[in-house]
């Protein structure tokens, strides 16, 4: 029986992601945990999170999870979601400059105030269902058509200089990176656990992924 650890570090409600993983993978054991050993021994790791990046990094430090994440992110199938994508970059410009985990080169920036498609000011947060353009093939995109819509809610987004790691973009109003992938790492800005059929499909793909891309 395989296990999935959902890292519980006090950043938001993890019930949704745990319920969705259990729904798509009844054969897996879902462990919502902050315990380094539990995370280290799981077959797969999900790194979720909503809220402020500064709190996120402080909680990770406080719970001694930084080294664990650095470690498991080198070998196990690893899925970052929302803040769990942003924290993988080198730094974030949310509330000043916050140093992050540095697994992908680049930083996290706010959507700029600009005009949306209809000429009115762009609403921030970017909230709702947006079309996701897959920019490379990946096992986690298996069975998910191009431009499928996923649910987003965020005000900051990743800007990576690792162009080859970009796995998808979405438009708001211009294209921004909404998925990153390298080796056993995959991270999405949207919420698969709230994206109905296509989100569940992605989670199902993750639950059987061997970590090779």
């Amino acid at each position, binding site marked *: 029986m395989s296990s999935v650890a959902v890292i519980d570090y006090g950043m938001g409600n993890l019930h949704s992601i745990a319920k969705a993983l259990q729904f798509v993978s009844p054969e897996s054991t879902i462990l919502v945990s902050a315990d380094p050993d539990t995370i280290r021994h799981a077959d797969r790791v999900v790194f979720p999170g909503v809220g402020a990046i500064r709190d996120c990094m402080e909680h990770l430090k406080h719970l001694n999870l930084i080294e664990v994440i650095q470690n498991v992110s080198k070998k196990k199938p690893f899925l970052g979601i929302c803040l769990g994508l942003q924290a993988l970059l080198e730094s974030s410009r949310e509330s000043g400059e916050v140093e992050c985990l540095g697994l992908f080169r680049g930083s996290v920036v706010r959507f700029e105030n600009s005009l949306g498609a209809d000429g009115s000011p762009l609403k921030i947060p970017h*909230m*709702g269902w947006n079309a996701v353009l897959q920019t490379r093939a990946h096992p986690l995109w298996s069975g998910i058509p191009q431009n499928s819509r996923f649910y987003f809610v965020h005000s900051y987004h990743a800007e990576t200089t690792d162009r080859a790691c970009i796995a998808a973009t979405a438009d708001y109003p211009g294209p921004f990176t909404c998925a990153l992938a390298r080796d056993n790492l995959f991270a999405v800005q949207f919420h698969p656990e709230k994206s109905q059929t296509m989100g569940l499909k992605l989670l199902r793909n993750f639950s059987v992924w061997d970590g090779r891309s």
Partner: protein
Amino acid sequence: MSLAKRIIPCLDVDHGRVVKGVKFVDIRDAGNPVEVARRYDREGADEITFLDITASSEDRQTMVSVVEQVAGQVFIPLTVGGGIRNLEDIRRMLNAGADKVGINTAAVSDPDFVRRAAERFGSQCIVVAIDAKRTGNGSEALHWEIFTHGGRRGTGLDALEWAKKMVDYGAGEILLTSMDRDGTREGFDLELTRAVSEAVSVPVIASGGVGNLDHLADGIIQGKADAVLAASIFHFAEYSIEDAKRCLLSKGIEVRLA
């Protein structure tokens, strides 16, 4: 392709049953909330909002259990409003599986509650619900006042000023209901919707008065709403969510087709 406009069915829940009142009276039974939510999900609802209209706090546990059951089967965003008065109420609903909570009366009696809630749980899950009613005799500039307690109590607060203040305090979204239109099936108060939508930087959900599918499109095109909320037109199967999406699509509005 870009961000889709959202259609949000709203379930008014009383003692664990879906009901729909006309101007908050004359309540009709519309079914089991878990079954209704599953149907909306299948039809392509973009989110679901539950409004707990149960008066007594002992019945609040019923709502928690409804949310838990829905969240185990329906994987789209869920919002719960009604009776959210303190941080513990929010925590309990989020733990049950809600993604956002709607705060209405408690925000008026203590605006700082919104700030504390946004700091603790993040703006993304704080929806400030505003019930607004037109005031004045029509000869002056348009003006709307905030009402609380299900539309029974005036506050003297100006709706536009209040919406801006709530966004400053950390609201991630505004759920705007016209008390003049709620339950009338005459369509949204489009002037109100547009005024608020243009005044704030966060998404605005238009609510109150939907009687047909054209009203939904009007809320988006003329009212500039980011999302539209309706209850009765969906409950009694007059229209499905899919009908609504096809109608919006035919008017050039981007929607998510399930």
